[in-house]
């Protein structure tokens, strides 16, 4: 086992987490689980930002990551409020049942 980890491995980890997020986003039927997959994707991107910030020895990546976090918080708040409203009207959390916008 090498004493230091190449930077590229952090990026690979980020790619794996992102791919898992995409898989959850496409394949799960519960709305809340889909939402959590989106949060997983955002976390993966945060890791990439921090890694590159380390590589370039600049702090800008940290700030981007900070903003991503803020926006994710806002998005979670509003998104969960929407989910609540949908649940109130449709009595279901399965996204396949919320398809009345069909042509």
């Amino acid at each position, binding site marked *: 086992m090498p004493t230091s980890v190449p930077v590229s491995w952090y990026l*690979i980890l980020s790619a794996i987490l992102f791919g898992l997020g995409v898989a*959850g986003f496409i*394949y799960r*039927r519960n709305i*809340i689980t889909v939402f959590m997959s989106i949060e997983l994707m955002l976390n993966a991107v945060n890791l990439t930002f921090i890694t590159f*910030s380390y590589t370039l020895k600049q702090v800008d990546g940290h700030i981007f990551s*900070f903003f991503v976090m803020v926006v994710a918080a806002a998005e*979670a708040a509003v998104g969960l409020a929407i989910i609540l*409203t949908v649940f109130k009207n449709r009595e279901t959390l399965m996204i396949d049942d919320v398809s009345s916008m069909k042509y």
Partner: protein
Amino acid sequence: MTALIFFLFASIAVFCGISLVTQTHPIASALSLIGVMGSLAILYLQLGGEFIAAAQVIVYAGAIMVLFVFVIMLLNAGAEGTSLQMSNFAKYAGIFVLAAFLGLISFVIQAMLPKTEGVVFGAFQGGTALNIGRKLFTTYLLPFEVTSVLILIAILGAMVLARREI
């Protein structure tokens, strides 16, 4: 030492991620996500992002995920019937394809970045609150202000959407 910590928490993160995608009950998924966030915080610390690691734990894991859990409890969401609606063939073939895809990505990334560089804990000292604050309030002032408006809008939106209809 660095490598050990990296591998440990990286595998915890991947394991929690897989569990998030495959668990049936939403609460289990939420707890998995908290696990992912925690391990990522450790990894940020290793890369010199102490402020971001703290923010991750406080904001992300501590507030957003709590919100998620609250909503799951509020909606009384139960377990799904089957978590992944695929045939057996698609399931196993999908794992194979995914593994192949990830291998490809790894190869590309390895080839692009120089291998000599390694992560040393403490090599990057710029991730302090001081540095972040300096950059935030000078170069990135406008996005900062805009983001605050964004949060305001989100608050208003959430309040309007969730109120009881009279």
